């Protein structure tokens, strides 16, 4: 029973760290602000949730689990709201997303004889 909790905690921590690193790679390599925000926002919330659940299974002591649940609930509220605020501020200030219009236009021109 103890080792089952250890294994599941390790699995959650592993998934969480993998998501975290993929979010970090995404924020470096994606071409545009809005795509980077996808990488940062989605992986932020999910990786935090996985890692916090992994920590909860590590040491099921009453007060510590309660505080971890509080951090988890707060992150679930706060992180999507901050992404929304950033995106709406960017749209409000006319930051245009990079669209593939030129390339798709050229493909249409070359495919039509």
């Amino acid at each position, binding site marked *: 029973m103890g080792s089952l909790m250890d294994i599941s905690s390790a699995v959650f921590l*592993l998934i969480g760290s993998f998501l975290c690193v993929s979010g970090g790679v995404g924020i470096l390599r994606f071409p545009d602000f809005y795509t980077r925000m996808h990488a*940062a926002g989605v992986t932020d919330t999910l990786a*935090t949730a996985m890692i*916090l659940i992994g920590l909860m299974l590590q040491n099921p002591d009453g*007060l510590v689990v309660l505080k971890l649940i509080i951090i988890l609930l707060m992150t679930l509220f706060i992180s999507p*709201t901050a992404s929304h605020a950033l995106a709406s501020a960017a749209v409000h200030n006319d930051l245009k997303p990079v669209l593939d219009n030129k390339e798709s236009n050229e493909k249409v021109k070359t495919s039509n004889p």
Partner: protein
Amino acid sequence: MLIAATIAILVVMIMSIVRAVMGPTFYDRILAVNMFGTKTVLLISLLGFVMGRPEFLDIAIVYALINFISVIGVLHYSDSSVFKRSSQQKK
């Protein structure tokens, strides 16, 4: 396993600092700082468990709140007319 997760989060924090320095637009930098903040919350919680002192979770709660309030503050004050005036003067 905890130590591996801590190292992974440190690597991600360095990546987000690189984006904060590099990012061409202003909003890239705010996004990177926001990500740095949430990763710090995770880092403090993990360090608390690694060192065996769960009192650090209070600091994690405070930092999550402060990060949120700072991002909202930066967005609010970058939207105000003072900044629009100064950026138009630069143009």
